């Protein structure tokens, strides 16, 4: 008997553990993406894209749904929490953030500082760390919900699917989730970045739109390219696709990057299949010197104008040309971060922190200035490891000459 009483008491403590947030699924309004913006009067505006379950295939007998797959509701308030609460003034169900795929930030919001949003997201037990963080470079960020989203049904899903496929095809965008951003924010000597979206008006008729009802007159295309650079928690500037390639090269997370090298009359396209970057910071004679050595292993994608890659000297020339071009590209991007952003998004400081913690402790308070004024020397060592399935150019007559 005593054992049973003991057991029951033990079970009661479990009930008290606080896991009592029972939510019936039918009472949920599942947010697919959230846009954080600053309103005209300087207050916060939070727009949630909410899945519409009655438009899902689950209840449809056949054919496509005639209802919108999602709705958007905006709330305003003095704090982010107030703005979220303001959404429920319109919404009859419990807003549920556990399936959020993307967090969009307007330019204005990001410039004002992300710290409030980060604090709110880290504190809330339902807000998870997986959604991608994206800055929208447009005066009307809400237009993202009226843009064409290609084959997807919701903007959040669109970004999530793109985050899984785009890195396999190009390194011109960055996909940073909330956890990565927070980690970068706390890492000494590395400033955070986020993904970047801009809109482009559609010149042709919007054939990209599969969902006829949602926005039949949508003329905006989403371009997910480049990155938004931060200093601490504030937006300081943008990088374009080519500069973003450099970011990937220097942070050693290149999946695939294509570099075009003009050779002769035509272009040769090389793919970086894997690469490593060795970052060194030294202080010769009171100056700061940043040394970068990038080792890249390349694949030949196309070789126009008949370069014969079966000849070693042709391969060598190609490698050298690649090295020069990429060195210039890296130089330009780092220069931009130094002079325009004053923000070490590439993590040179973190590299120094790892190699020489003693020195880092001495200079970390002035690192931003040291970084901005540092001299940069870039070395690229490339190695073509695959010429593709053919060695000779496909245009035989060129060789015959």
């Amino acid at each position, binding site marked *: 008997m005593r054992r049973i009483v003991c057991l029951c008491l033990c079970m009661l403590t479990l009930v008290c553990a606080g896991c009592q947030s029972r939510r019936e699924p*039918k009472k949920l309004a599942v947010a*697919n993406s959230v846009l954080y913006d600053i309103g005209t009067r300087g207050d916060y505006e939070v727009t949630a894209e909410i899945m519409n379950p*009655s438009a899902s295939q689950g209840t449809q007998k056949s054919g496509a749904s005639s209802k919108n797959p999602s709705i958007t509701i905006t709330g305003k308030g003095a704090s982010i929490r107030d703005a979220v609460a303001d959404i429920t003034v319109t919404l009859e169900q419990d807003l549920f953030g556990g399936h959020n795929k993307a967090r969009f930030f307007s330019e204005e919001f990001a410039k004002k500082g992300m710290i409030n949003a980060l604090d709110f997201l880290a504190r809330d037990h339902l807000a998870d760390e997986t959604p991608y963080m994206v800055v929208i470079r447009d005066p009307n960020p809400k237009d993202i919900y009226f843009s064409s989203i290609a084959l997807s049904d919701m903007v959040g899903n669109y970004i999530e699917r793109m985050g899984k496929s785009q890195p396999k095809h190009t390194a011109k965008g960055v996909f940073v989730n909330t956890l990565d951003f927070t980690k970068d924010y706390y890492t000494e000597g590395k400033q955070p970045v986020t993904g970047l979206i801009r809109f482009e008006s559609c010149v042709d008729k919007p054939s990209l739109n599969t969902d006829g009802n949602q926005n039949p007159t949508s003329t905006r295309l989403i371009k997910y390219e480049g990155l938004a650079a931060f200093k601490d928690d504030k937006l300081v500037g943008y990088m374009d696709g080519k500069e973003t390639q450099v970011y990937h090269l220097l942070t050693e997370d290149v999946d695939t990057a294509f570099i075009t090298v003009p050779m002769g009359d035509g272009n040769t396209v090389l793919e970086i299949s894997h690469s490593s970057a060795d970052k060194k910071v030294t202080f010769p004679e009171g100056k700061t010197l940043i040394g970068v050595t990038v080792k890249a292993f390349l694949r030949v994608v196309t070789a126009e104008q008949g370069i014969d890659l079966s000849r070693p000297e042709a391969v060598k020339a190609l490698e050298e040309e690649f090295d020069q071009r990429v060195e210039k590209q890296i130089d330009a991007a780092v220069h931009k971060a130094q002079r325009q952003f004053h923000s070490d998004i590439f993590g040179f400081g973190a590299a120094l922190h790892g190699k020489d913690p003693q020195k880092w402790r001495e200079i970390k308070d002035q690192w931003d200035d040291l970084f901005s004024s540092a001299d940069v020397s870039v070395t690229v060592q490339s190695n073509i490891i695959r010429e593709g399935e053919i060695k000779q150019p496909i245009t035989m007559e060129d060789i015959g000459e």
Partner: protein
Amino acid sequence: MVIEPFETPRGRAMIVYIDGLVNQSLVDRDIVKPLKSPSFNGDISAALEAPYAEYTDVPGVTQEILGGNVACFYRESGVARILEFRQFQTRGVQEPDAEGVIRGPKEAFTENIRTNTSLIRRKLKTPDLKIEDYTMGRQSHTTVSLVYVEGIVNQQVLAEIKRRFSKIDVGVIFETGEIEQYIDENTFSPVSGIGLTQKPDVLAQRLVEGRVGVFVDGTPHALTIPSLFIENLHTSSDYYNRVLYASFIRILRSIGLLITVMLPGLSVAVISYHQEMIPSAFLVSIISTTLKTPLPVAIEVFLLTIMFEMLREAGTRLPKAIGSAITIVGSLIIGDAAVNAGIVSAPIVIIVALTAVTGFMVPSLAEFTVVYRGLFWLLGSTMGLVGIGSAMVLMLTQLASTDSFGIPILSSFGKAERKDGVVRYPLWDMLYRPESLVKDNRRRKVRPR
């Protein structure tokens, strides 16, 4: 009762028997005819043409007559000669109605205990096979047989069974299940420490692994003691099938057991507490289907599970032909109609159907499954995943603290047990008998192959 006095050339004689239990033509041929013949000279032991036993006490004779024997009295000698001409209607050896196999012997025990002991003798032709008879039941005087293989059997278990047998005091016994309840120490445990089989090959297999078998006259089920938990996941054809397939099926059965116990509770916990764990696309479909149903998910799961148990019970009670019809009508038509009518949602029907189907994979654990499915559902629907975790702890604690005649039922992870556990090793590699069961004579055989 037939009391038949008759005259012999040398005085009066009488035979007493119960009609319907004896072969009357044999009685006539071997008792009545020789005694009535003119050549009968008064030497009754020479005249009776069958072996007999002599009784002088009335209760003993009464018991023999009730047991189906013939008592033969001659003059006023005060001695009853008991002859065995037992013959009564029994069912023949047929296929078992449970424990069906594709490959392997298809015979099953019958209601006649002598048929059963002969079936087991035919499997194990060794003088070490011991069959000890007991008589139990104040009114039924049922024969109960203890079967074991001398030299392999665990003597402690055997002594314990005999001790518990001696304590049984009961009016009637018709089934091994009654013996089981009298000798089982874990009355309220949902998992029994005593195994059950209808098949001679299964029993023989377990006997040579040091277990003890129990037959009860009048039932085709035999008990095997002790029984480890893992045995519920084994079938006889696991040993007859080739090793990879047998292991695959065993793993499948283990997964099936987990699913049938945990799935309703786990799904309720995840759906109503931890929606962030469900893939988005599936969550949308759950929301959209539950939107139009009136009940909370937990109640839906509970009602459907109960309904399925009812259908199953109805199916077993009804005659076979109608039973299958009921099950089909119940599961297909009622399930589909309930979804269409908006009483339950389609994902829940699938969850319960999966639970039910996997439940049939381990039929010997039906009681265990029902009790713990309920516990998982209860804690899962009140506390979410914390509840699932605590139900798991409760279940494992209970299993780990359950003994079968002094042997923990979870003790199946010894070296020899592992070779015959969740997977089955090649037969030639099973050199030893399970060490938790067998204390001495552990070697099955000498050479691997």
